[in-house]
């Protein structure tokens, strides 16, 4: 038995290493005093400074933040409603509507949103289209998290409240909402992270206007790879890392709720 455990441990550690080493390399090389991501040539913050002077990049960061905040706000509101609805009304179609954007290949989502915006809504692509697009797939995530939280709750609390004479609004406001607040916060942070990181859907719905952070990174990767990419990557990683840690503090069940 112990022998098998050891074998499992060894393989697992290798897998963990596989997951982490590439990222560690990116971070380490962001401090590398060399243009090539090859050998270590000395410690420098030069690339981070270059980032701060890169106007495109700063603009992209600002835009991405605006989008992420708006999208996560909208998605959290709508997603919470969706999660509540799915939990309340047992219709089969509701989960399908809310969760489809989460499970399908992003290309399809991007394409259909693109066509939808242009053909049906006649909307010029720009910040607004990106915000709507991000909201769309974030709603599903928030709904999953909220629903998972609701499923774990004891129904009798609500019944007790109603027995004591609370109106539906009071029940919702004073009981439901506080109870699912961790899930809502986790959902909001999750949406924010997804929005900041999103590449494929943004790529399709962005139009020709302002720069967005992941797109900037993509362009840098394709055109001229310098350790500036490492630097911005490290910063992004720090940001999303912090957010995810905070999110899971609020709602650890979210970790299990990844799959439908």
């Amino acid at each position, binding site marked *: 038995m112990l022998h098998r455990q050891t074998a499992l441990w060894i*393989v*697992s550690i290798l897998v963990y290493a596989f*997951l*982490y080493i590439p990222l560690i390399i*990116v971070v380490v090389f962001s401090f590398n005093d060399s243009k090539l991501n090859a050998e270590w040539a000395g410690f420098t913050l030069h690339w981070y400074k270059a980032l701060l002077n890169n106007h495109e990049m700063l603009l992209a960061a600002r835009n991405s933040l605006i989008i992420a905040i708006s999208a996560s706000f909208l998605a959290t509101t709508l997603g919470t409603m969706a999660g509540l609805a799915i939990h309340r009304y047992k219709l089969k179609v509701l989960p399908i509507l809310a969760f489809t954007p989460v499970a399908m290949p992003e*290309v*399809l989502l991007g394409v259909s949103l693109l066509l939808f915006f242009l053909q049906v809504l006649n909307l010029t692509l720009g910040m607004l289209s990106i915000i709507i697009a991000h909201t*769309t797939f974030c709603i599903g995530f928030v709904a999953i998290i909220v629903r998972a939280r609701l499923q774990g709750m004891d129904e009798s609390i609500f019944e007790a409240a109603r027995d004591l004479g609370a109106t539906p609004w009071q029940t919702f406001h004073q009981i439901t909402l506080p109870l699912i607040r961790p899930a809502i916060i986790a959902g909001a942070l999750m949406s924010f992270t997804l929005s900041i990181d999103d590449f494929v859907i943004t790529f399709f719905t962005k139009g020709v206007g302002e720069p967005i952070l992941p797109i900037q990174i993509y362009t840098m990767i394709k055109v001229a790879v310098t350790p500036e990419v490492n630097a911005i990557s490290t910063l992004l990683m720090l940001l999303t890392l912090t957010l995810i840690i905070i999110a899971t503090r609020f709602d650890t069940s979210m970790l299990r709720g990844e799959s*439908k």
Partner: protein
Amino acid sequence: MVFTSFRLPGEFGGLAPINILPGEVAGDSGLTTETYQFFFSDFIYIEIFLKSFAVATFTTLICIAMAYPLALLIARSRKKFRNLMIMLVVLPFASNFLVRIYAWMIILGPESGLSHFINGILAFFGIAPVTLLFSPFAVLIGMVYVHLPFMILPLYTNLEKHDPILLDAAQDLGANSWQRFWYITWPQSLPGIFSGSALVFIPVLGMFAIPDILGGTGDIMIGNLIKDQFLGTRDWPFGSTLSIMLTLAVLGTAGLFSRFARTRNPV
């Protein structure tokens, strides 16, 4: 409780048969199945589809192989370690998608330590040096790397629910550890494997960023093709046709997976 679903994307299905070409190129109006004929006319499109399926299959299999031991270990660990271990699995997922791909560009790049190492060994045997990057190998690694957490988590969720009593009973009846695994753990874990596979296989089918960045010119997949049609050549009807093909493939695969992923009663 207000349920809003109006934000979901609209259906793009209608465009494939309708020749509307926004952009500089003007097209004739009216419905036609021309694009579908075009799709089937040249074998290369089907070939790309098949290639994408192959990549998805290999990615899924490799993910299963790598995820299973880890998921098993976490499921069997003490409760207080489990959350930490799961967190460690999820954290890399927190980094930007592009960053994770970019990391492999560094590792597999021609100037990297790994390349020097491998080429050194090859040179010892008199074999010409190989480029690790911009190859199907790189694409595969990238795909596995990005999707591994999606396989680990559902598998873990499933394995966690297994009752160790069954294993004890089997041991009492004289089964060795391989038999215990194969006859008890494995069958029970199948729904988890299928859930995880669905979360890996389907997104991989539609991926384009990984082949785009890590692959060579011969490694394009369906996703690249679609993206090019929409944002490159602006042949929207054809792009839509491709998208519909992909959707059908996805729906078919998803249907298959969900049939197998439904929880079955343990032995």
